[in-house]
C-alpha cells in the first residue's frame, strides 16, 4: 500500500517537475562483497566450537531524482552464506556446510519543502532469512542553514522482526524450553548535527537512542552450566536501551591528503561499554584517484550476563556465552582505491540524447582481528553508475 502511495506521489511530482526543471541524473551503485571468518567461540555450541563462516553479498542502491526537489531511493541486497556454527544446531560434530540466505528491500522517498534548506524523507522495507522475518519503516527531517554550513537531521527507524524459533536438537522435547515471545521490536531515534569549521575542516556529531524489546536472545544459542551436562538456551532481558554517540572529523590539510577521523562512545543497559576509533587517510595522487588506507580499533567491556562455557549457574535469571557480547578488543586494517574520472570509465547510449556511464570504481580489502581469537577478512567492490 505504501509503495502504491509512493508511486502516485512520484508520478504527480514528475509531471510538475518536467515543466519546471531538467531532471538530475540517476545514480546507481552496485556493491559486491566476500567475507570469511573463523574462530573457536561459537555461541551455538555454548562458547566453544567453530565460528567458520563464508558470506557472499551483493547490494543495489538506486537514487532517482524526480525533479530538483524530490527523489526516490531503492535499495536491495542479498547475502548467501555457509556457516559451521549454524550447522551445529542439530549436531555437535559437523562441517561448515549449512547454507542460508538473507535478502532485503527498501523504498525511500525524500522531498525538499524549502529549496536546499528543509527536507523530509520516509522509507519502508523488509528482510527475510531462514529463521527471521523483518519489516521496517521510518522517516526524518533535515534542516540546513542558509549558507549550508550547518545541518541538523532528525530521524526515527522502526524494525518489526519475527523469529522462526529453532531450538537446539537436544532441547526440542515438548515443554523443555519455552519463550514468552517470538517478536523483536527495535526503535531508533537519531540526531545528527554537522558543521563546516573552515574551508578544509568539517565535523558531525550523531547521537542515537535505541530501544529494543521482545526476544533479544537467540533461541539456538546454547549455554552450559557448572556441574550440569544439559545446556539451556541463551536467556537475556527482554528490554535493552542503547546509547551510541559518534563524532566525525574530516580534514583536508594538503592537496594530496585527507584525514577522516571517527570516534564512538557506546553504552547499553546490558552494561556493555565501548569505545571505537576509526582513521582513514586518503592519498590523492591525482584529481580522480584516491588510495585510502584505513584502520579501526574497538574496545568493549563485557555484558553483565556473559560468561564462558561451563561457568554460568543454573539459578541465574539471564545468561549468554556469546562472545559478541564478551569483553574484547578488535582491530581492523585495510586498504582501498577509488577511481572516478571526470567523464567516467565507460559510456553507453541509454536512449535518445541520453548517455549512461560507469562513473567510479571503488575496491577495498580489510583484515579483522578480535582478541578472543576470531579472525576475518573481506574484499569488496562498489561500481558507481550514472546517467
Amino acid at each position, binding site marked *: 500500500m505504501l509503495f502504491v502511495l509512493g508511486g502516485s506521489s512520484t508520478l504527480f511530482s514528475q509531471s510538475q517537475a518536467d515543466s519546471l526543471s531538467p531532471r538530475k541524473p540517476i545514480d546507481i551503485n552496485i556493491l559486491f562483497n566476500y*567475507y570469511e571468518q573463523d574462530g573457536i567461540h561459537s555461541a551455538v555450541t555454548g562458547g566453544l566450537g567453530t565460528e567458520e563462516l563464508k558470506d557472499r553479498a551483493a547490494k543495489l542502491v538506486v537514487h532517482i531524482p524526480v525533479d530538483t526537489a524530490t527523489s526516490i531511493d531503492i535499495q536491495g541486497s542479498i547475502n548467501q*552464506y555457509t556457516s559451521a556454527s549454524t550447522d551445529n544446531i542439530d549436531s555437535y560434530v559437523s562441517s561448515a556446510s549449512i547454507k542460508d540466505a538473507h535478502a532485503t528491500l527498501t523504498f525511500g522517498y525524500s522531498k525538499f519543502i524549502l529549496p536546499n534548506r528543509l527536507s523530509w524523507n520516509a522509507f519502508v522495507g523488509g528482510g527475510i532469512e531462514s529463521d527471521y522475518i523483518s519489516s521496517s519503516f521510518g522517516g526524518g527531517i533535515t534542516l540546513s542553514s542558509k549558507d549550508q554550513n550547518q545541518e541538523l537531521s532528525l530521524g526515527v527507524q522502526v524494525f518489526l522482526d519475527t523469529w522462526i524459533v529453532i531450538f537446539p536438537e537436544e532441547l526440542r522435547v515438548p515443554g523443555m524450553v519455552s519463550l514468552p515471545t517470538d517478536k523483536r521490536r527495535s526503535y531508533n531515534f537519531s540526531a545528527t548535527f554537522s558543521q563546516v569549521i573552515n574551508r578544509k575542516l568539517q565535523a558531525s556529531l550523531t547521537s542515537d537512542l535505541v530501544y529494543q524489546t521482545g526476544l533479544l536472545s537467540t533461541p539456538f544459542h546454547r549455554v552450559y552450566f557448572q556441574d550440569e551436562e544439559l545446556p539451556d538456551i541463551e536467556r537475556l532481558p527482554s528490554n535493552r536501551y542503547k546509547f551510541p554517540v559518534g563524532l566525525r572529523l574530516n580534514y583536508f590539510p594538503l592537496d594530496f591528503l585527507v584525514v577522516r577521523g571517527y570516534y564512538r562512545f557506546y553504552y547499553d543497559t546490558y552494561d556493555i561499554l565501548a569505545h571505537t576509533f576509526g582513521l582513514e587517510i586518503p592519498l590523492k595522487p591525482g584529481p580522480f584517484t584516491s588510495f585510502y588506507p584505513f584502520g579501526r580499533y574497538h574496545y568493549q567491556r563485557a555484558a553483565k550476563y556473559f560468561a564462558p562455557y561451563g561457568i554460568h549457574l543454573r539459578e541465574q535469571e539471564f545468561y549468554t556465552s556469546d562472545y559478541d557480547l564478551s569483553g574484547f578488543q578488535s582491530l581492523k586494517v585495510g586498504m582501498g582505491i577509488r577511481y572516478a574520472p571526470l567523464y567516467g570509465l565507460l559510456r553507453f547510449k541509454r536512449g535518445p540524447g541520453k548517455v549512461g556511464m560507469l562513473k567510479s570504481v571503488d575496491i577495498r580489502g580489510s583484515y579483522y582481528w578480535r582478541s578472543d581469537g576470531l579472525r576475518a577478512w573481506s574484499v569488496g567492490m562498489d561500481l558507481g553508475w550514472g546517467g
Partner: protein
Amino acid sequence: MKSKRKSYLVFSILAGLMLSLSSCVSVKAYEKMYLNDSDMALKDRKGAYHEINVEAYREGAAGANGGKIGGGCGCN
C-alpha cells in the same frame, strides 16, 4: 561507578566540542572545493556497507554510524 564517571566525561567532551564549533567561520559556496570532495563526506563510504554490517553483528556495540540497528538476527 568509575565507568559511569568516565561515560559522563566522554559525553561532556563531545558536547563541549560541538558547542565550540558554533564559533566557526562562514564558508561561502564557492570556497567549498575541498569540503565537496567525495573523500570529505561526513559518512562512511558506500563500499564499507558490508563491513559495517559485520561489525554490528560481531560486536555488542553498534549505532551512531549510519549502520543498521535491527532487521537481521546476525546469529551465526
